[in-house]
């Protein structure tokens, strides 16, 4: 019977978000109809821009890579009952740290060592960034949602300060950036695809954190804190340690995303890092119901929506914020759909059956 309950539970966790997505698409269709665009055409173009051609699929996967990692920044602390929304800040600071590391390192190093140092710098900076929010929550009782968002604005200010000031490459006139890391040091693409290795890093990170959260004592304790902090503390679990370590891992995921954006896409740190992946990542995490494995397909879906924005802009002359509107609608509907859990008879195990 326990098995039937689990299957029904998984089915519920799949069906309700799908339903919410469908409702969101209908609402979005109504919205574009009001502004005078044929919704069917919008849907068709979105499909084409996201998954229609091999080019668009690669474009989608390119966007999914940072989204997967940014989503983990929200999804992991959520297992402990924390709402962290500072992924954008950790991503930005991670990208900046990676670029700064590239400036410090001497030239002529083995490429893999160079890239490894950049990745480690990015992950450490991102991990420290979100770790601060976790520590503030535990030691000072500061609300982690607000502190992580404030830290995002501080991270962006630091990025601007460094890119316009100490770390500015004098050669970058029109678009202030740090010194380029050099073509030979860029992270390459997965063989046979135009997608860089960041996608694989993201998927591996998800698998790792899934195992950590659902198959180890650490994960069990962490989720117990998420269930009931007081009960966890009473049974002797080191609540503070669990909170802070999880925040560090979460932040290092977002920091890795930033390092990869620098090392595989932009080649230097600049304001292109502030692309909103951190915010879309929050939505991915909630849509995936904070499950690290579910994050992968959801990030690809949202990456697709993101990728289709360009086509909507070119073909229908819609503003680039169109995808933001759709994302916002999905977010609100998905949260409203939370109320359906446990209320649909079909998914409940019958008593005394």
């Amino acid at each position, binding site marked *: 019977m326990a098995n039937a309950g689990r299957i029904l539970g998984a089915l519920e966790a799949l069906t309700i978000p799908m339903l919410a997505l469908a409702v969101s698409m209908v609402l979005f269709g109504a919205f574009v109809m009001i502004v005078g665009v044929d919704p069917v055409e919008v849907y068709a173009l979105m499909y084409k821009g996201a998954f229609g051609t091999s080019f668009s699929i690669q474009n989608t996967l390119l966007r999914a890579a940072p989204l997967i990692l940014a989503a983990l920044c929200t999804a992991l602390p959520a297992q402990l009952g924390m*709402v962290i*929304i500072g992924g954008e800040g950790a991503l930005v600071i991670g990208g900046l740290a990676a670029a700064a590391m590239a400036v410090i390192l001497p030239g002529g190093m083995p490429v893999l060592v160079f890239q490894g140092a950049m990745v480690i710098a990015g992950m450490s900076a991102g991990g420290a960034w979100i770790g601060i929010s976790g520590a*503030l929550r*535990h*030691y*000072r*009782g*500061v*609300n982690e*949602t*607000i*502190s992580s*968002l*404030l*830290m995002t*604005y*501080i991270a*962006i*200010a*630091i990025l*601007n*300060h460094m890119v*316009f*000031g100490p770390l500015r490459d004098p050669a970058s006139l029109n678009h202030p950036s740090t010194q380029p890391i050099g073509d030979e040091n860029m992270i390459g693409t997965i063989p046979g695809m135009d997608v860089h290795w960041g996608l694989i890093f993201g998927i591996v990170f998800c698998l790792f954190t899934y195992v950590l959260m659902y198959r180890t004592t650490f994960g069990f304790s962490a989720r117990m804190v998420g269930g009931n902090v007081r009960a966890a503390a009473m049974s002797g679990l080191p609540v503070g340690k669990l909170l802070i370590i999880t925040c560090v891992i979460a932040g290092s995921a977002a920091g890795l995303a930033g390092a990869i954006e620098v090392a595989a896409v932009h080649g230097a740190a600049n304001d292109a890092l502030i692309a909103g992946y951190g*915010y879309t990542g*929050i*939505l991915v995490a*909630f849509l995936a119901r904070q499950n690290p494995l579910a994050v992968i397909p959801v990030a690809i879906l949202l990456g697709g929506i993101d990728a289709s924005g360009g086509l909507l802009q070119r073909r229908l002359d819609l*503003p*680039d*914020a*169109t*995808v*933001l*509107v*759709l*994302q*916002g*609608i999905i*977010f*609100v509907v*998905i*949260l*409203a759909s*939370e*109320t359906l*859990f446990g209320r649909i008879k079909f998914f409940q195990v019958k008593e005394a059956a």
Partner: protein
Amino acid sequence: MESGDLGWLTVPLAVFAGAIRVSTPFLFVSLGECLTERSGRINLGLEGTLVMGAMSGYAVSYLSGSPWLGVLVAGIVGSGFGLVHALVCNLPKVNDIALGIALMLLGTGLAFFLGKNFIQPQAPNLPSIDLGWWSDIEQVRSALEINVLFLVGMALTPAIMFFLQRTKWGLILRTVGDSEDAARSLGFSVERTRMLATMAGGFLAGVGGSFLSLYYPGSWSEGLSSGQGITAVALVIFARWNPLYCFYASLLFGGAGALGPALQAVGVTSGYYLFNAAPYILTLGIMIAMSSSTRRFRGAPGELSVTR
């Protein structure tokens, strides 16, 4: 004294002027959020509401030629967002913090989408009152050019205090915020009270947003708000849900926000971007100083999830 040659004195003067000018959106958002949080719910979506208010206020002022109509519409749009927040939150099992984040993204997205056509044209701005007529010095005069919305906010502060402390509706609102069970047993509708409180909060945040686009900086652009909304929400927490403290804290934040531009004006440009982060660093610093891991905030509404 020659006008225009004040040297370093321009910095404190500009910070003072900024405290009044930059504080106005903080003031409106925090007063609104104060009402919402006193009813036991937190609306983080006010960041999005602020941007929506800025866009709609500017658009209406441009189309109708009346900035005051713009302010009104911005408030109505804001209360619409408050209504959505309240209605969805009234469903069982919906988390008010998460929904706030969702509405933050939706509000920003909608404002960017609908505001695309209003980035270029110049809409009529709100008037200001010249209180510096007695001075010959240009900087003093411009510092004392007080905008009307600031005065409205200043008048609202004691009015909201009176409402919360001395009226029947204020008592109902506080009861709902402190204990749902007590409010229900007295026959008050928790859902309806919170809905009205969140709508009122949204209205004020929308008005605060219209100030950004209609007075200072005075035009609509996508980079208009960078976290003023969320800072104001945090500000309510350490203002201990007291409108008067919200007012003081807003002034403090306005001054901090004006520091970067003021220093730039006298030629200090090296730390410009870091000084721009002053309000956020200040917020975080005060939150760290005033929070505690062992006890709740004094004066916190009992039903408020964010302080538990």
